[in-house]
């Protein structure tokens, strides 16, 4: 079962191109460029992309056997180490691909949105590397709470445009970036940060990210002679997820698990227009958001609600349409873990494996604990699904999350956390 989108950019019922008319030609131009350069390697685009991913990005990233987790769970756990990619997360795979594509398309300017700042920093790095002027839109609230990432973007020479609309977070930044694109569509490319947005973005971003599963597939064969029984990845927009799944989708024996942020609860507060989670696959309804039909966290009227997660990178009310489709098709299992479990998994990996994971990635790890840990809920089917050899996509490193971890650990009872009191005032 291949999930490649058809020419109309649909994945089953999902996907499409719900954008202002002014952008349609840019999107058609992009699809054309995508097909020529990415799918057909015209002018050696893909060769150059792969070479830059290797030399600038640090690919391939390792597939590491995690000894202590394997002991703990009685399964063989392998970590796909996207945290080692330049910039500290899988985001660069996509940012580099798109900025390079913009160059091939003759664009002269890059815009991008960012929430936690991970996609923004990756784009700023890629733009500096490829000598492209770059402007990043970021909500004012996010600017306030993600200062190190803001600073990194500035250091890399990007302009930062604060977005004051609404609550000043990712969703508003996306809308604002779309507006910029609609105004400057002639010379500007919008580097969308995940497998979301109008076609061809979901498919294209998935292709740029699929280097993750391409490598993991090869590395699995090298390491244990066969494919893994399951692949587990966290899902916000779903780019690391689709990247980790893409080359396994046709391998029906490989179970694919997308772990969403369960936040503090799975319920939606319609009054307040707030979902205390970001689990759009598990709890969202079909909707149209940011250019695509997909699963969306929304109120009864279809107004998009504010999502929430301890992990800023998962904190998004939508999800990639292809992932929504694969879930509906039962090819991917959508599961979720809450904030507390993610924090616990963060501390566990840090202490037991010597790797400080991004809070996003900690969600994928927390799912192992939920199903296989000593206090597992006894869901034997879930445990069976995971199988003996489990690849977890470690989508990023946690250095960006230190302040959040202090604050969030301090206000909770996380049994395995070191004493945080000496850091209570922040770093």
């Amino acid at each position, binding site marked *: 079962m291949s999930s490649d989108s058809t020419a109309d950019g649909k994945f089953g019922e999902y996907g499409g191109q719900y954008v202002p*008319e002014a952008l349609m*030609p840019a999107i058609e131009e992009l699809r054309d460029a995508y097909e020529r350069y990415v799918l057909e390697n015209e002018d050696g685009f893909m060769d150059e992309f792969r070479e830059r991913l290797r030399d600038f990005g640090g690919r391939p990233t390792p597939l590491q056997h995690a000894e202590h987790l394997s002991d703990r769970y009685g399964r063989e756990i392998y970590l796909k180490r996207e945290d080692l990619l330049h910039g500290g997360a899988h985001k660069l795979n996509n940012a580099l691909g798109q900025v390079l594509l913009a160059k091939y398309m003759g664009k002269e300017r890059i815009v991008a949105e960012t929430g936690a700042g991970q996609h923004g920093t990756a784009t700023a790095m890629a733009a500096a590397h490829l000598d492209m002027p770059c402007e990043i839109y970021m909500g004012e609230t996010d600017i306030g709470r993600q200062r190190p990432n803001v600073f990194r973007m500035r250091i890399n020479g990007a302009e930062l445009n604060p977005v004051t*609309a609404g609550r000043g977070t990712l969703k508003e930044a996306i809308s604002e970036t779309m507006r910029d694109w609609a105004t400057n569509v002639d010379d500007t490319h919008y580097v969308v940060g995940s497998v979301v947005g109008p076609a061809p973005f979901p498919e294209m971003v998935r292709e740029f990210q699929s280097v993750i599963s391409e490598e993991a597939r090869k590395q699995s064969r090298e390491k244990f002679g066969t494919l893994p029984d399951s692949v587990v990845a966290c899902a916000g927009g779903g780019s690391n997820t689709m990247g980790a799944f893409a080359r396994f989708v046709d391998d029906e024996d490989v179970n694919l698990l997308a772990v969403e942020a369960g936040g503090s609860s799975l319920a939606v507060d319609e009054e307040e227009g707030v979902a205390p989670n970001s689990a759009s696959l598990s*709890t969202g*309804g*079909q909707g*149209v958001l940011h250019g695509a039909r997909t699963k969306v966290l929304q109120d009864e009227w*279809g107004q998009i609600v504010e999502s929430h997660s301890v992990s800023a990178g998962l904190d998004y009310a939508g999800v990639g349409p292809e992932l929504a489709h694969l*879930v509906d098709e039962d090819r991917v299992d959508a599961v979720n873990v809450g904030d507390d479990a993610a924090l616990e998994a963060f501390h566990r990996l840090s202490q037991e494996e010597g790797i400080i994971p991004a809070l996003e990635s900690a969600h994928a790890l927390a799912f192992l604990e939920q199903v296989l840990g000593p206090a597992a809920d006894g869901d034997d089917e879930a445990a069976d699904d995971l199988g003996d050899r489990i690849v977890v996509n470690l989508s990023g490193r946690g250095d960006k999350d230190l302040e959040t971890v202090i604050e969030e650990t301090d206000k909770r009872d996380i049994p395995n956390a070191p004493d945080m009191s000496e850091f209570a005032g922040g770093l």
Partner: protein
Amino acid sequence: MSRLPEAFAGDDPAFIPYLAVGDPDLPSSKAYVEALVKGGADCIELGLPFSEPIAEGPTIQQAVVRSLSGGITPEAYFEFVDDLDVDVPLVCMTYYNLLFRYGAESGTKAGEGDYEAPGPRPFVKRAAEVGIDGFVIPDLPAEEADELRAACDEFDLDLVFIVAPTTTDDRLATIREQVSGYVYVQARLGVTGAQADVSDQTAESLARIADWDVPKAVGFGISSGDHAARVVSAGADGIIVGSALVDIVADGVENDRPTADVAADLREKARELKRGAVRGARESPEAQGE
């Protein structure tokens, strides 16, 4: 049955103002709509605020925020329209998700037993009931519009599409097949917002669709009677004005002005725009050629 043709039936060009319903509250909106009609509106675009207005500039974005924080819902919007007592066609301007979700159960999951996908029909049905004549959905290009087109046909409503300066010839053909009521000619690139000038692109855009048999209304950035005149003299059958009017509403909110005063200003501005349009019609090559 859509009354949209009426808007373009007279000799004068159509003046189509936009307002976000519920900005800053429903009673004010009612007064403002009435004022615009008194000021000469031939049709009104009634914005139904959506939480992610990706096609709007800052002015309308803020109107949307004001309206949403006042608690507007699609149902409240429909009741508002139902209560309106004005004698011009009404176009509902909103984003697709609100049409798509209306009447759907939230949280339903595709792929499960008795699941029925959401769709625009319930929204269109209800809109027809309350007297809406047509739709402008800025995030719904013609390619994605089959379902909505079908529903509009079923209830005899119009579906307006936007033609942008960047729209390719291929896409023009697609749009031409889907459009009814009027074509919304986007005067320049970018998002909505009052602008000091109206682009040369207007004439060019109009020329490209000259042989279409729907009226052509030009919008995006018209903020004065002079703009209106120039746009109409370039061949438009009507003008659409949003931000320049919403600016007046915003000013009223900021300065806490009485609704009646704001309404008076809106009427004044409407007059200016309408007069400009009429003047433009007289100056148009067509008119002069007659």
